């Protein structure tokens, strides 16, 4: 187990390293970062000074060493806007809003996904199964931002029930409903399919038949025995999806003016605040890598076969 853990951690570190390499390369191959950072009317001499201050007059390999050095110290540079806060602090301010949104979206997709998945698996090819299939196909095909726009159109414009923009701090939980549904909608399909196929697999097993034969009510067999045993792959999918939601929230946060990191990314890009852009991208990659490692470790802990094979 220790060996396996060490191996996964190394792999995770390698992934993060590739991310840093990609970001470094991006900011360099596309020209001089100063040209992105500096306002267009900045005099030439100031640019030269900036270049020196950022170490951009040195050869590329030295720049790369410097870049890594500051990363290890947790120094992601300074934001250009406001009072030149450290980019890391600017990011951390926005993290809670994104976490609220992604958690709510995940919850929505899990509840709907498990419900619909178990019901479809209980009676394959029934009307419920078919309805579930239609929902899955529709869910995979509708772009997140269109779902958001439709929700606003119906619940804000026509019914006037829900606010269309916000953040929990400003609007409370009511403002969370539509962003969470629009972000979670995409995952309902994948969660449902996964739950359905895992439960179907489990339903074939002898202990399920046994539980059934010894007279347990079908409801109990399905929701307790079958669902519990189908939980491992399903739970893995939830965790992995959560990590990707954090980065996928860009569009949803833009539509609903949600003050999270996705919105921060778009704002920073428009303001050419590349220190913050880089920090946000790192953070999202970190979340994905860390969650993936945790999932793998948990999986290995639950199922010894993986430790040996991995």
């Amino acid at each position: 187990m220790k060996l396996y853990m060490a191996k996964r951690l190394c792999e995770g570190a390698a992934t993060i390293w590739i991310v840093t390499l990609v970001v470094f390369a991006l900011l360099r191959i596309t020209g001089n970062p100063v040209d992105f950072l500096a306002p267009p009317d900045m005099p030439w001499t100031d640019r030269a000074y900036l270049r020196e201050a950022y170490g951009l007059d040195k050869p590329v390999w030295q720049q790369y060493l410097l870049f890594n050095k500051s990363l290890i110290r947790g120094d992601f540079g300074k934001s250009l806007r406001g009072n030149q806060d450290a980019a890391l602090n600017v990011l951390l301010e926005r993290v809670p809003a994104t976490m609220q949104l992604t958690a709510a979206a995940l919850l929505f997709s899990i509840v709907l996904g498990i419900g619909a998945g178990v019901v479809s698996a209980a009676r394959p090819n029934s009307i419920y199964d078919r309805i579930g299939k239609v929902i899955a196909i529709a869910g995979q095909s509708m772009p997140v931002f269109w779902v958001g726009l439709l929700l606003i159109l119906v619940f804000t414009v026509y019914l006037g029930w829900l606010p269309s923009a916000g953040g929990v701090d400003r609007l409370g939980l009511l403002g969370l409903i539509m962003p969470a549904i629009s972000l979670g909608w995409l995952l309902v399909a994948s969660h449902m399919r996964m739950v359905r196929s895992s439960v179907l697999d489990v339903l074939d097993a002898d202990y399920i038949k046994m539980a059934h034969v010894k007279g347990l009510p079908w409801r109990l067999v399905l929701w307790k025995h079958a669902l519990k045993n189908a939980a491992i792959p399903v739970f893995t999918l939830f965790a992995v999806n959560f990590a990707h939601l954090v980065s996928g929230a860009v569009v949803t946060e833009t539509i609903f003016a949600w003050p999270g990191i996705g919105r921060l990314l778009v704002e920073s890009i428009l303001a050419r605040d590349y220190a913050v852009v880089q920090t946000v991208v790192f953070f999202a990659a970190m979340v994905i890598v860390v969650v993936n490692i945790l999932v793998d470790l948990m999986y290995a802990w639950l199922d010894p076969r993986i430790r040996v094979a991995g």
Partner: protein
Amino acid sequence: MAGTYSLSGKLALTVPLAIRGQPTLIIQRLRQAWRGVPIFSFVMLTGAILCALFAPLLAPYDPIKTNPVHALAAPSLSQHVLGTDHLGRDVLSRLIYGARISITIGFLAVFVAGSLGVLIAVVSGVYKGWIDRILMRVTDAFLALPYLMIAVTVISILKPSMLNVILVIGLLRWMDYARVLRGEVLRLSETDFVRLAVVAGCTQRQIIMRHIFPNIVNTLLVLTSLGVGAGVIAEASLSFLGLGVPRPLPSWGTMLAESQKYLYTAWWLPLIPGLTISLLVMSSNLMGDWLRDRLDPTRRQL
């Protein structure tokens, strides 16, 4: 039945050998090959491709020309069938021209992603060893990238353009092809016919091109079909954020972004382009599902 299982990468058909070449039976054979094809998907995809090819002939108005007098006109059968947007541009015409952008980007991005994925899969699966290990580690790393965030960042640096959108989507979306196809290549390289080809003195190039590649075409086709839909959504998302195809080109994503300000006055602006995107993506997905079932009956539907 005198069946032949075709390994040549075409649709695997069960047809008596003797009937090949007879015209009526060719029709029968074709009919068999297309059995169960999702009609809706087929019509949608063909329609979209036709719109893309013949946009200038089909569009009733110029998609870019503004006409403020007719701004935000509701859909009506007499003039603008699907209404006009805030600058008085005809929505139907923009939709038809938009098919050009979505189809081009969807297909070319898949082409870039597929080519890179096939290349990595073949190199990985044929050479094995440490090359394989490094390439798969890189693939895993790319899978852990926050895809949309990186796409947005890169395009903002490179400046939005059609070519950049294609390249960015393609270069961030090759991992599925690499992983799935690598498995196939590994499996194939252990088969008897590849071993016999080695014994028979085939060069590596011949083995890859004539023995391995034709056998991964089926899987590639399925992945491609599913990938076009994902590509269309990615393009629309980028355009929606203002980082896709530059304005005033009529991308469906841009149309949705512009509709945001007019939700209270013009319901057709958010509804129509979104519906078009969804239907096209759904068609591509259903087509992929059908191809998967058709080309590989052993595969269980997940």
